[in-house]
């Protein structure tokens, strides 16, 4: 007997609406007018069914800054945003550079149970960029770490980066690089361009990202390893990736919702809610990133969800920490920047929000097809819905959203993780 | 409020109180009064200095001096004294540009200074002028000449020379026009509640 029937949803926004019956966490049947027979029913008329979203880039802040986000509050935000798996970045305090911390994060995620929380392991001890962390131990731990990153900082030393790429080949893991040449970004505060120069904000030049991406692509090709590029922010990086992929480099890349939507024109208020690393670039970059995502040069969307306390944001620009909330606003921004302008259809959304990230991270049970026998890990989206962002109403403890007051299209109506409804109609249900 | 309909209304809802001819005659009369009251030219009399308060006190002072010279053959030094920085009502109006302060070359030490303004109303401008004068020097005595006294004093200040006393309602406006600043000579009354 089915535990749940989703009535009248449109998988991938294609074809006639169908009913989807779920049994034992698996899609048991897909068809017209299935018999609910006492099972819970979700009326999904007019909704698009997609595989649950996977975020390769989330900061959950636990351990260390539980005043801004915890694994629990972040899991709630993820479920409400349509996510069924998130990758928790390693720059916690203490740093997730050992099996003890990554297992703690993994266990806390399981206890909360709203979303699969996969810890990302640090590449180097303490994110210092000097000595490889115990990547193998983390990979073999209960947390089964398959993504390693010093995110927030770049693995700048080319020899350390080469070793990390080579070593992870044996672990079937991937290095996710925060591409930022540190010598070119000393004191950097904003995208190096005409506007930042006028505002007196020290520049973060595009070339500081592009040169590292180019170097890492060459290294990855040379040692035959996989590389993932975090938060691609410039048109030039997209060009480098196109070139590298053309040469057969095993490189994947993500773009954040904010780099798709926002640009450096927002900086004129000096409000640090717009401060993020890498910085908001120009509108030309944003346009190029949308095109790169549409064509697959950039593989997926990742939030770089980065909660910060108000005292770290409601201050002068240079004193503020970089980062913005992203989990609950990611889909609406993809709808706004990609779906509504016709750059991506719903099958494309499934690809960039779910299938490709699951593939990059090697998750066997996420980003699966909506088909009988597959896990009932799904997100139901109302494509016609609109909502106004209020930072205080978001599930995160912190409220640092740059989209405050913005009306966005696309509402996540329900999220299912292996048959369990984790969020429905804007409320966490599990 | 009693109706006031002497004279023909001006197009902008204003009524003419003094014509160009009235203005000229009034200034001439004031010049005679100054000559008489200050014993101008008499031995032992203090030297007289006219200080016009910008904007329209300045041309009025110059005209008074010209009439005095005409009637007495005595050239009275003329200057201007801007009082903007001494006003106590600056915060009630948009930021005012400063007017010019130009004391005559001989200064005002020990002189009989006659402050000259177009309209005497609350008296606050004159209070500010007295403060400004104190910072500018030490005259022997200070007198006040105005073309129109419209009443409604808020301070114990009175004029020594008044061209015309005009009873007004507080909300009315008295506008003095001079050839030098406005292209013609006249004194107009704008009724309460009417806007140009």
């Amino acid at each position, binding site marked *: 007997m089915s535990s749940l029937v989703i009535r009248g949803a449109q998988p991938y926004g294609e074809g006639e609406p169908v009913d989807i019956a779920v049994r034992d966490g698996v899609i048991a049947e897909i068809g017209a007018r299935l018999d609910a027979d006492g099972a819970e029913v979700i009326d999904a008329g007019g909704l698009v069914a997609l595989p649950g979203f996977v975020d390769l880039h989330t900061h959950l802040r636990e351990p260390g800054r539980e005043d801004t986000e915890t694994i629990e509050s972040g899991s709630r935000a993820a479920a409400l945003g349509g996510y069924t798996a998130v990758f928790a970045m390693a720059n916690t305090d203490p740093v997730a550079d050992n099996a003890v911390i990554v297992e703690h994060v993994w266990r806390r995620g399981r206890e909360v149970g709203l979303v699969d929380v996969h810890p990302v392991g640090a590449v180097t001890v303490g994110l210092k960029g000097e000595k490889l962390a115990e990547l193998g131990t983390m990979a073999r731990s209960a947390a089964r770490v398959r993504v390693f990153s010093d995110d927030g900082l770049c693995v700048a030393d080319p020899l350390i980066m080469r070793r990390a790429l080579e070593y992870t080949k044996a672990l079937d893991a991937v290095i996710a690089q925060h591409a930022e040449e540190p010598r070119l970004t000393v004191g950097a505060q904003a995208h*190096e361009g005409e506007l930042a120069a006028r*505002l*007196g904000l020290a520049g973060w030049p595009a070339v500081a990202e592009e040169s590292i991406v180019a170097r890492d692509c060459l290294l990855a090709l040379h040692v035959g390893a996989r590389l993932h590029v975090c938060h691609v922010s410039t048109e030039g990086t997209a060009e480098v990736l196109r070139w590298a992929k053309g040469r057969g480099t095993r490189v994947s890349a993500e773009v954040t919702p904010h780099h798709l939507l926002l640009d450096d024109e927002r900086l004129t*208020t*000096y409000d640090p809610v717009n401060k993020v690393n890498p910085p908001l670039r120009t509108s030309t970059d944003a346009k190029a990133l949308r095109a790169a995502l549409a064509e697959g040069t950039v593989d997926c969307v990742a939030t770089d969800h980065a909660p910060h306390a108000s005292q770290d944001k409601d201050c002068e620009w*240079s004193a503020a920490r970089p980062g913005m909330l992203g989990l609950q606003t990611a889909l609406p921004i993809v709808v706004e920047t990609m779906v509504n302008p016709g750059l991506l259809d719903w099958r494309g959304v499934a690809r960039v929000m779910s299938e490709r990230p699951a593939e990059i991270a090697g998750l066997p049970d996420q980003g699966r097809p909506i088909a009988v026998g597959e896990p009932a890990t799904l997100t139901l989206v109302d494509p016609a819905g609109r909502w106004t962002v209020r930072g205080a109403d978001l599930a995160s403890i912190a409220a640092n959203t740059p989209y405050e007051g913005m009306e966005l299209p696309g509402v996540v109506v329900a999220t299912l993780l292996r048959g369990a409804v984790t969020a429905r109609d804007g409320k966490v249900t599990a | 409020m009693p109706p006031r309909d002497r004279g023909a209304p001006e197009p902008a809802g204003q009524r003419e109180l003094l014509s160009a001819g009235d203005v000229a005659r009034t200034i001439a009369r004031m010049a005679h009064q100054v000559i008489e009251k200050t014993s101008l030219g008499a031995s032992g009399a203090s030297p007289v200095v006219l200080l016009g308060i910008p904007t329209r006190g300045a041309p009025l002072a110059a005209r008074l001096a010209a009439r005095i010279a005409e009637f007495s053959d005595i050239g009275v030094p003329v200057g201007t004294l801007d009082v903007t920085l001494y006003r106590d009502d600056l915060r009630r*109006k948009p930021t005012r540009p*400063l007017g010019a302060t130009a004391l005559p070359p001989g200064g005002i030490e020990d002189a009989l200074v006659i402050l000259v303004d177009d309209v005497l109303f609350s008296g606050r401008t004159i209070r500010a002028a007295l*403060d400004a004068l104190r*910072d500018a020097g030490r005259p022997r005595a200070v007198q006040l000449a105005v073309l129109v006294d419209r009443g409604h004093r808020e301070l114990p200040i009175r004029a020594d020379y008044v061209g015309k006393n005009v009873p007004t309602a507080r909300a009315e406006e008295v506008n003095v026009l001079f050839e030098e600043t406005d292209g013609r000579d006249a004194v107009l009354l704008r009724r309460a509640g009417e806007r140009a």
Partner: protein
Amino acid sequence: MRHLLSTDGLDPATALAILDTADGLKRTLLGREVRKLPTLRGRTVITMFYENSTRTRVSFEIAGKWMSADVVNVSAGGSSVSKGESLRDTALTLAAAGADCVIVRHPASGAAHRIAGWLAAAGTSVVNAGDGTHEHPTQALLDAATLRDRLGRIDGRRVAIVGDVLHSRVARSNVHLLTSLGAEVVLVAPPTLLPVGVADWPVGAAGSLRVSHELDPELPTLDAVMMLRVQAERMHGGFFPSAREYAIAYGLGEARARMLPKHAVVLHPGPMLRGMEIAAAVADSPRAAITDQVANGVHVRMAVLYHLLAGEEDNS
């Protein structure tokens, strides 16, 4: 006018009104024994300096005192700032304590903008007395006042700004103000000391802006040359090979000064590094307007306080 945060976006009519007021104040106070006006009696002005700058702080303090405002100085070292209080809390505290105007110098670009935002409800005016490498609007206004004194007018005049434009808030404020008042501004510096895309900055429509890397060809056509300070940390930051090479290429020595037209004025925002960006003999020559700049600084800052505090409440 509610705040003075930048000259970028300051409309030329307002800028000229401030300069005219400064002129009027200067004439009013000329030759007086008692330099005190009652204009801002009862108003409280607080200077908040998070960077040491005796000359700017003193200039504002004198300006406030000559207008009879109560001036209170808060320095970062001697307040709760050193105990880690946030800029926001400090600003809100000073406003709550009754500040009508806060004058702020801060190492972070945009700090004055932020404070103006936090104090929007308090009605307190904010003057930017230098924020990071962004702007220093009163310095530009006093430079403009000095140029107007010396040259009669600003529009149509050609002014070179020489040196570390990249890190200079004085240069940024002058570029916006002088071009909006119709000057032709030439920035002269090595490429490493010029801001990105500076040639494309939107500037005042009445004037123009261009960039040059060579000082000598510019000199004979200039009406004024403004020498910027070269800070010690830039010398060690690899922005140019050596102090000697900089002085040879961009320093205003006596021989260079002779290439200027007779009427041309030399400005320097101070403090000067004699022998580095400017030769002592040039700094002390009659064409140098450096002490005029300091004197005008007081009158311009009085004028700014007058325009911010002496009119009716302005919430724009």
